[in-house]
């Protein structure tokens, strides 16, 4: 592990975003049937800022009884909501999109506080995509007859949705926007470490005048999610999270009529050929694995580099990683924020230790870690083989495993050698090679000469154990229609 500190030509003065724009209440309830309410058993949990370990708020924790109450509220609301003309549903969603745009700075700061991601990312990636997603699906609400699912496709009913902590508000948008556009009502469970933006979204629903019961928000842990998924009056289950939980959900809904979409883990291969422009590829690799501290299901966590350019690429990559600024997520200069939770940090740490123990060679950028909060320096492993744990398991952190190949065939074979199949990247100047390799990769999203690009019009989702169903685009409607 190198500790050489590279000096930068420019030192950066702190440029903190003001947190006074967001007003976090000391406590929040569950949002059921248009009202904030306590949990039936009175349970609460604390949500902390992962960069400081400061308690941000105390949030009601939904139990099975609350799940039942929320599902009943959603069921009551379904009849009227699904009967509304699509053009009316559309206008509600357009309102929501606009209010999100109006409040986007506030929400970006909130997201950064609760999640630990750099404000630069919350502000420039998460929030614009959230608003765009609502805007996009708003437009579908009165055009479903023309979406290719036959005339007058029907909604499913009550959707139970469980989302992760890595992009809290964006995952909410991916779930709620298509569900409402197609006439379903929802009960959504945000992750236990990032409940706040979903609760702020409840307030946006109030401002938009959304009928009560159409959106219900139930903060809680895994057991809350399990109760929601298993509730007999839920017609649709949508989950984004780990593959292990995804499999459990698939077992839970077996033998029922519930429609399921799962967006699960990944171990994306980012393939760099010898003719790729090295500087652009390095930027893409960095974006692929260090965006959101690598806590991204479609991260390019396996770098497959053609042997002849391995040394040159690694040198550039290490140089680039040494310039990444890790620290206060609210600082507009920050590239690498905090790991979302103590638990996640422990998982990353243990997988990295395993990588070292198995003989892969670790290199971490020399950077000072803040004394409080959860942090992990950008790290890469070289001399990695396909048998190494760090090449097989999803680490969900800022850790890149570097493998090499000699021929395109070998690159494809290695890229596909995983039970996952969510994303992949290809870097080469040769167009025909891009198309040939893209064609043979078993992954739902292939980024060529770019990485980690998202758009509401573009379907996203995995092959194999990365889940099934697509979110985004016309394809994303199918998950919420009885077709």
């Amino acid at each position, binding site marked *: 592990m190198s500790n050489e500190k590279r000096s930068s030509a420019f030192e950066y003065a702190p440029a903190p975003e003001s947190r006074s724009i967001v007003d976090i209440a000391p406590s929040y309830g569950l949002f059921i049937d248009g009202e904030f309410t306590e949990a039936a058993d009175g349970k609460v949990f604390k949500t902390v800022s992962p960069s400081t370990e400061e308690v941000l708020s105390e949030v009601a924790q939904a139990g099975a009884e609350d799940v039942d109450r929320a599902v009943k509220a959603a069921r009551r609301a379904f009849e009227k909501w699904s009967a509304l003309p699509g053009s009316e549903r559309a206008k509600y969603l357009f309102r929501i999109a606009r209010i999100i745009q109006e409040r986007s700075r506030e929400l970006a700061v909130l997201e950064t506080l609760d999640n630990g991601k750099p404000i630069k990312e919350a502000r420039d990636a998460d929030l614009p995509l959230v608003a*765009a997603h609502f805007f996009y699906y708003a437009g579908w609400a009165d055009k479903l007859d023309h979406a290719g699912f036959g005339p007058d496709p029907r909604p499913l009913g009550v959707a139970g949705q469980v989302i992760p902590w890595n992009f809290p508000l964006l995952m909410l948008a991916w779930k709620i926007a298509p569900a409402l556009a197609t006439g379903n009502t929802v009960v959504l469970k945000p992750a236990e470490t990032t409940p706040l933006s979903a609760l702020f979204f409840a307030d946006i629903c109030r401002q938009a005048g959304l009928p009560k019961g159409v959106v219900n928000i139930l903060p809680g842990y895994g057991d809350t999610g399990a109760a929601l998924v298993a509730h007999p009056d839920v017609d649709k289950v949508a989950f984004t999270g780990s593959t292990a939980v995804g*499999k459990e959900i698939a077992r839970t809904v*077996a033998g029922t009529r519930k429609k399921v979409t*799962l967006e699960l883990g990944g171990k994306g291969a980012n393939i760099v050929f010898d003719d790729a422009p090295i500087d652009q590829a390095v930027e893409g690799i960095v974006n692929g694995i260090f965006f959101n501290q690598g806590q991204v299901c479609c991260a390019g966590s396996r770098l497959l580099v053609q042997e002849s350019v391995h040394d040159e690429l690694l040198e550039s990559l290490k140089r680039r990683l040494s310039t990444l600024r890790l620290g206060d997520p609210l600082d507009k200069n920050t590239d690498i924020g905090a790991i979302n939770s103590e638990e996640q940090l422990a998982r990353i740490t243990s997988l990295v230790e395993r990588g070292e123990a198995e003989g892969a060679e670790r290199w971490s950028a020399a950077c000072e870690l803040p004394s409080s909060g959860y942090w992990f320096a950008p790290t890469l492993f070289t001399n990695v083989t396909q048998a190494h744990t760090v090449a097989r398991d999803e680490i969900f952190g800022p850790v890149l495993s570097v493998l090499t190949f000699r021929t395109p065939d070998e690159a494809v074979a290695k890229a596909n050698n995983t039970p996952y199949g969510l994303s992949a990247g290809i870097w080469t100047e040769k167009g025909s090679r891009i198309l040939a390799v893209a064609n043979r990769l078993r992954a*739902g*999203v*292939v980024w060529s000469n770019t990485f980690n690009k998202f758009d509401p019009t573009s379907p*996203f989702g995995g092959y194999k154990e990365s889940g099934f169903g697509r979110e985004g685009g016309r394809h994303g409607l199918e998950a919420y229609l009885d077709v």
Partner: protein
Amino acid sequence: MSDRLSVLKTYKLYVGGKFPRSESGRVYEVTDHKGKWLANAPQSSRKDARDAVVAARKAFGAWSGATAYNRGQVLYRVAEMLEGRKSQFVHEVADAEGVSKSKAAVVVEATIDRWVWYAGWTDKIAQVIGGANPVAGPYFNLSSPEPTGVVAVLAPQESSFLGLVSVLAPVIATGNTAVVVASEKSPLPALSLGEVLATSDVPGGTVNILSGRTAEIATPLAAHQDVNAIDLAGADEALAKELEIAAADNLKRVLRPQPVDDWTATPGLDRMTAFLETKTVWHPTGSLGASGSSY
């Protein structure tokens, strides 16, 4: 009627383009609806199921990599071969389903027409369900359907031929390869279909047909880590639930059994889209700069 003694056929499995007996050496008695003996059909074991998966996986690269036009021609060839052997299938369907020869003929004709329908879909489905996505940025972005992989198909129990083809043809039209478990009670039309496929330019292993006890064969298929999807059409409610739970272990795509009143009705796209993945490919478009607007 001549009083010539007819030559009976030994019905065999169709696996990897060959016609093996069950490795277990077992057969079971197949009768018509009145209980008259028709044949001894192979009673496949879980080893037969695994062998069929190996064959289907081996065939997947070439079949999914064939051009859509080529797959369409091959499927059309199947219809041509069926047309020539119509009387055999009329006979088998009449025996299997207890219907008159004239009713069986209607079923067989509908079955042949179903192959033709799906043969035409191979090079059209991608345009109907895929396409360019207008992303907000300088990127080319294209979504295309791709076959899921190896699909286990539990053929409907009642409709031994039209039902079978209605669930099999959509799976292979889009480039998947299949392991089919024939109707338990009436497997003979399915086993004869293997003989048609073998002479229709369908590459060996693309379709593999097993007869036997549905639950016995389906259980290892649902749990098999190299099977990507399963169509539960031929499973009853209890078995379907059990298989769906087993299928969750590697997140197989599961098509649950749905009531079908009329197999002759024109199918929609559902049986094709159930076994398709969507792949989305991005690439920067670049820019020609200000001079690009000069024309």
